[in-house]
């Protein structure tokens, strides 16, 4: 069988496999098959230049696929940015800057106001480890229920 495969696997087998895998990516989720498909296409191109036994071809294909996935994750994915924070309450609120309209001096909570409503409201209660006077600007660090955890700027 090994001999049969060695003699009958041609470069275009790899090309067809690669195209099938890339196409299959549309129908399955995960973005994994795509890289195996790209690797298979690469193998097809490689076989045109140099011949090698089938076992080595498969091994090379698997290794190439892993390398492609790792490359993708390492260099390209970190450059993706979030285009929206809608539906992500934590991300939408943290880092926002508001001004204090009711101080928390002498009591556990104060109130702050954002220039524009965030999550449907422009006035929020806040807690802070430090005492903040009216008019000061604060940055949202965390959310606890309906209360924001802030730190002075």
């Amino acid at each position, binding site marked *: 069988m090994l001999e049969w495969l060695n003699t009958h696997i041609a470069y275009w087998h790899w090309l067809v496999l690669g195209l099938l895998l890339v196409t299959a990516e549309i129908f399955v989720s*995960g973005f994994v098959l795509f890289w195996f498909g790209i690797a298979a296409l690469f193998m097809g191109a490689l076989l045109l230049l140099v011949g090698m036994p089938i*076992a080595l071809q*498969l091994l090379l294909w698997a290794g190439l696929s892993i390398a492609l996935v790792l490359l993708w994750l390492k260099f390209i*994915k970190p450059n993706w940015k*979030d285009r*929206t924070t809608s539906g992500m309450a934590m991300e939408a609120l943290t880092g926002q800057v508001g001004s204090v309209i009711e101080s928390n001096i002498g009591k556990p909570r104060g109130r702050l106001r954002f220039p524009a409503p965030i999550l449907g409201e422009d006035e929020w209660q806040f807690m802070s480890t430090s005492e903040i006077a009216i008019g000061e600007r604060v940055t949202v660090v965390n959310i606890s*229920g*309906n209360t924001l955890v802030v730190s002075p700027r």
Partner: protein
Amino acid sequence: MEGLSVVVALVVLVIITIGMGVRIVPQGSKHIVQRLGKYHGTLNPGMNVIIPYVDQVPYKVTTKDIVLDIPSQEVITQDNATIIANAVAYINIVSPEKAVYGVEDYEVAIQNLVQTALRSIVGEMSLDSALSSRDLIKAKLKEAISDDIADWGINLKTVEIQDINPSVTMQKAMEEQAAAERQRRATVTRAEGEKQAAILEADGRLEASKRDAKAQVVLADASREAIERVTQAIGDKEMPVMYLLGERYIHALEELSTSDNAKNVIFPADLPNAVKGLLSR
């Protein structure tokens, strides 16, 4: 041959392993990652990589707003009236890990919290103020629940009172009260009208009597004037009264002749004596 089997097995393993390691999280949800049973991290939307076999994704949480229907319930107000209230709450999961580990079923938990808070808030209000101050109830409700849900990493965006209705018996009683009030007003209005009418009628009678009296006086004055004139004209030859009486007498006889049932009228021959006889002189 053995080499090929090993390589094929290896390729299958690689595909499955990479497939397990790459996780694509759709926008609007977050996935919780547990490493060997312990919480490890939360996956944000987009492509994520977890360590296959070691990490698992046991919970997938939506970060979109969740609409919670608060079932209608009977609430007793401060003045012992029963009303039926239901609400709708909009919650948003801020910290998925707190939501899944902090409470068994956050939807049921928040539903129950809103129900009990609504009961206690309305219980401190009178029926009329509960029916008219939805906004106040809303604000109080939000305030009351905020602290309780803080541990679960959930943000209560709004809670709206959908219906706040008196119970069937209460509604009937209120309608009856309103009807009775209208009835009372109608009765009062009618009585007032009757009183006004009676007063006006009596006023009319009084006025009429006054004028009648005045008319009598005028008539009497006229008679006196007439008698005086006649007296002057006749002088003391004959009693003026006799003249007047005679005149009336003839007038009466004239009227008698025009009546339907007596056509035969006999004039006395000696009119002055007849008149004198009438006066028995």
